[in-house]
């Protein structure tokens, strides 16, 4: 498998008042295409910061971040936005759906950044909603759906433009166990059947078991890596 992500000597810190706080001092990691990585660790360990850097929404203060042979840590804000639109699907803990748009319009959002025709966009939206088993809820508003259904809409939105990478920030943190398992099985399916590379931040060891491997972070360092059978 080819390397999708490579972090080389990444340094990340910020200044709070007069104090300099370091999150990563020399982080190195690779993620291969088709991988499903769970990142675990206590609060403040840097797992969300890592996810943000992988998603191009936060920049390292040093080192390099490479994606599919392209260095992304030095891209401008505008180019990073284009890069995200082409390569990344985000899945958030609280779904982050637009409350004023129905499910289909929410899923369509990433397609508005493409040159697809309205007809083609509609077709892709139907496909994505069918994949998450919500085709019959296309016209429903987020407020008319359960948490699990909203997260499935968010997954449909994340995959509708067929990105290589899905970044999930506590995707089951707001769901009950049964619904969480349903969402995780869906992510697993996307990884195994559609070869999506998934990086998932989670506190939940049960959720991490759906990944191919789990990375444990503590104080900005990898302390343990385990492969899931």
């Amino acid at each position, binding site marked *: 498998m080819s390397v999708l992500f490579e972090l080389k000597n990444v340094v990340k810190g910020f200044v709070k008042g007069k104090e300099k706080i370091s999150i990563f001092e020399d982080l190195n990691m690779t993620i291969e295409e088709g991988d499903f990585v769970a990142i675990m660790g206590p609060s403040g360990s840097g797992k969300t910061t890592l996810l943000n850097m992988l998603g191009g*929404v*936060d920049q390292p203060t040093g080192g390099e971040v490479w994606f599919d042979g392209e260095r992304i840590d030095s891209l401008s804000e*505008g180019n990073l936005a284009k890069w995200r639109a082409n390569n990344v699907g985000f899945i958030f803990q609280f779904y982050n759906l637009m409350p004023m748009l129905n499910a289909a319009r929410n899923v369509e959002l990433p397609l508005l*950044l493409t040159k697809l025709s309205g007809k083609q966009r509609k077709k892709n939206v139907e496909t994505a909603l069918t994949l998450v088993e919500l085709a019959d809820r296309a016209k429903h508003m987020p407020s008319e759906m359960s948490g699990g259904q909203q997260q499935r809409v968010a997954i449909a939105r994340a995959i509708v433009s067929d990105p290589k990478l899905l970044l999930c920030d506590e995707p089951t943190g707001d769901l009950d166990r049964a619904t969480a398992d349903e969402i995780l099985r869906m992510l697993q399916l996307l990884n195994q059947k559609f070869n999506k590379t998934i990086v998932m931040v989670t506190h939940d060891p049960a959720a991490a078991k759906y990944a191919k491997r789990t990375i444990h972070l503590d104080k900005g360092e990898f302390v343990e890596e385990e492969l899931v059978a």
Partner: protein
Amino acid sequence: MFGLFSQIGTVIVMNIRSLPQRLWMSLAAVLAVSVVVAVLLSFLSMSNGFASTLDGTGSDSVAIVTRSGSQSELNSVISRDSVNIVSTAPGIATTTDGQPFYSAELYVVVDGIKKSSGTEVNIPMRGISRTGFELRDKVEIVEGRVFEPGTNELIVGQGVLGQFDGFDLGQEVTFGKTRWSVVGVFSTGGSAFESELWADARMVQDLFNRGNSFQTMRIRLAEPGNVDGIREMIENDPRLILDVDTESDYFATQGEALQGIVFFGWGISIVMGLGALAGALNTMYTSVASRSAEIATLRAIGFSNLSAFFGTLSESILLSLVGGVVGALVSYLFMDGLTTATMGPGFTQVVFTFELSPALFQNGIMLALLIGLVGGFFPAWRAARLPVITAFQKAT
């Protein structure tokens, strides 16, 4: 570029659909702008109406002669001798019987009671001859008849009837020690003359102790707009300390004094507009704050910061536009066509009608858009600079 437009369109649609979540604050912003626009248009329509009345009063075919340096008809004096000399000047049209076509007129002030306030005000009374009627193009007796020369009869302008008490047809009115009968109502097509009382010139001279003097002399010009012959005679004859101008130029100059209303209207509107601007800023900052997760999520998905900027700016402009239209409609409904009287340039009451023209409406909308633009710019800038990381913050 198309992608950018569809992004902006989507953000605008989302912003507008989410307005009910900020209903009261949005309504307050709309209300503030509408009040500003309504106030501005009220002042401007008043000024516009006043200017129209004065503009309609003057004619290019008529010259007006006044004492040199007098600022209004009221403080002008012309002797009979001067009138006779000027009447021989070149450029004066002749009547059908070959006489110089002019009217020597008196202009005095009498008391009247304003209907709206019950206060005592100055009403102009014009002493006029038959030629004075013929000299004016649009004079029409709409009720009753013309006064009989040599009697204490007067006729009243239509504007006087609507705005002042005690001048109904058939009524007797007392000015000082003199009593007058109202025998007719006249119209002059909405000009300032309709704010006047007209009576026989000789009677006004006698009863107001004016001897054989007049205030003004109106002359029908042989060639409209050409007062050169008369002016040349006045300038070359040391006995004549007079000014001459066409009536239209004279009233246009008088109307310039009303520019103060326009400046005052704009001044007060700008001050109020600053208040509305603060309201718009507050509304839009709140809007951005309440939608920060949505904006950041769109940015995370790949939407450009321009879409966040223009989406927010559009919301502000839309709210202000609604406020502007509401304010203009309120002004139109309550002000346009409203007839009132105020102190004119001759220290007498001039009856006029508020006029809200399309150009004024445009001014009001432009002011509203300016408030929306400035009030939305800074919040829109904040929306555009909102860190994408905000989308994740609720989850951490």
